[in-house]
């Protein structure tokens, strides 16, 4: 374990709010990972879809995921900065 990691680990151990924030960041990162996976799946679906209405719906879902992911990254960054 590197010096920086050890310090972060100790901080998490003794500072309750730091440990809560770390848990929040972990959860956000997990959700971001799942969103990324979903985005990839939807892109594959879109590539194989020919119906207009369904393509529109898939594009909309992708657009929403994009905004959600951006928001998630921003939240992660804010929590880490604190």
């Amino acid at each position, binding site marked *: 374990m590197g010096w920086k990691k050890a310090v972060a680990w100790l901080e998490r151990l003794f500072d309750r709010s730091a440990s809560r924030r770390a848990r929040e960041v972990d959860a956000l990162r997990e959700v971001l990972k799942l969103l990324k996976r979903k985005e990839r799946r939807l892109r594959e679906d879109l590539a194989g879809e020919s119906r207009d209405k369904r393509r529109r719906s898939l594009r909309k879902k992708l*657009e929403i995921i994009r905004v959600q992911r951006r928001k*998630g990254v921003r939240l992660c960054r804010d929590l880490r900065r604190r």
Partner: protein
Amino acid sequence: MLRWVLLAVVFSALAGLFYLSPEFKEIAAGVGIFLFGMLFLEQGFHAFTGGALEHVLRHSTDRMWKSIAFGVVTTTLMQSSSLVSVIAISFLSAGMLDLVAGIGIIYGANVGTTTGAWLIAGFGMKVDIAAYAMPMLAFGVILEFQDSRSLKGLGRILAGMGFLFLGIHFMKSGFDSFRAIFDLSALAMTGYGGVLLFTLVGMVATVVMQSSHATLVLIITALGSGQLTYENALALAIGANVGTTITAIIGALGANVAGRQLAAAHLLFNLLTGALAILLIYQLVDGIEILSRWLDISPDDATLKLALFHTLFNLMGVALMGPLTTPLVRGLRLMFPAPARVGSAPRHLNASVAGMPATLTEGVRQEVLHLYDHTADLLLQGLSLPNTVLTTDQDLVGSGELEEELNSVDLEAEYERRIKPLYSEIVAFISRHQGGVTPERFQRLFELRVASREMVQVVKDIKHMRKNISAYHRDGAPVVRQEYRRLRAHVAEQLRDVDRLRRETSDGREALPLLALDANRATVEEWDVRFNENLDRLIRDGLIDPDSATSLMNDSTYATHLCRRLVDVAETLFVAHGAEQHRAQVRMKLDDADWAEVRQRAVQRSS
């Protein structure tokens, strides 16, 4: 009145015995302190039934061996098979467990409870157990005064263990003194007559004390002080094993059919195991002699041999009943058939579910899901579409189903018959049981009540829409009929999306249901704008008369409200609440500013 008379008789008899024999007084005090300790222990574990226990229960009961292991471990920790059985019954009633898993837990609990006999025989009888009780009581009381719920629970568990140990000490010392005055072993009986009589005594004692653990402590301490013969002690242990089912039976009285099936399985298992142990008692005794030599148990250590016997005959029961679980489940379902699923009688709202905070919220959620099923069915009937539209992927606007003759459903009558009674039951149940729960659970119950109210509104919305749907489907101009078909298709597709989300969330295909619902919200809002823009165009071009146009406007408003409600209901019902990942999704859900961004990008794309 009879109860008071009985109580007076018992009190007088006990007072007389206490006066005559200080030793008996000590034994009785020991039993009392022991039972008090059990009570503390149960309350202490209840403090942890708000999260961790449910989490473990859900993830460790998907296979029979896991359920058995769960029963063994939890009963060993809690030292109460009755508490584990009652918890299993409550979870089953709330729909959080299936019957097979519940039966597995009962098998495990029966084996787990035998660890108590080992603890008392191996530890309690050989050391000064009271010396351990004192620090436990002191630490337990200090923790009891803490604010934290978990620390309080831990304090209760410690104090409970302390009282258990103190109770054992008093019983042991009472029997030791008693031996000098009166030799109970003179009442010993041999042969099958003795086995049957002492089994009955063990059963009655356990029913009275409602704790096989307390009976076993009495048996072991009496056996250790020579007041009981080994053979009679074995019979008493068999009786205690059968008598312990009484707590589960009492617990199941307030449960639904599933809970009763489990209590019956518990009774059957213990009766069968008991009968087998009585029949094979002498063979088992021989087997114990061999095993004792193997396990290095001294030949004259009757208490440890009793513990071994207790474990052995329960393991024998599991080995016998384990492979018969499937026919047992079939038999139980025949004995206690589930009530026919017609009408809207509640399925999960009962006293057993209300007994624990976790089962209370989950039971209510299951019932609100039941209301959702009725609502979805009525909604489709109101749209005059078959239930099969929920499972297809086709574009409904172009489908022939919208062209067909409308059904003749009476939505008002159906609402009175299926929705209102169930909604009233849910509201009444929540109101009765929400007091005393944690703020988080109170909030969850409130959300479930709001979701129920939303579903009532969904049915009212479709009731309003149905008037014009029927009128214009029959006599409307082609363009108006076409718009009503679009409106019906839109509502059905939204219901289909929400229903699909329910299936995909429950089978794990959708890991982020809360975020997925943002797309549904976007669809609902965009459709409302597009539908009304199209309506404006039709009016401007003179393709639709103003009267029909205003009807369509009103009904599109109903449709939009209805679809928004469906999304809100899905958010409350299908999304797992409370976990860290859920909180992360709540933070990432789109807010007004995000929606503005989504809309702006849509405008940019279209221009």
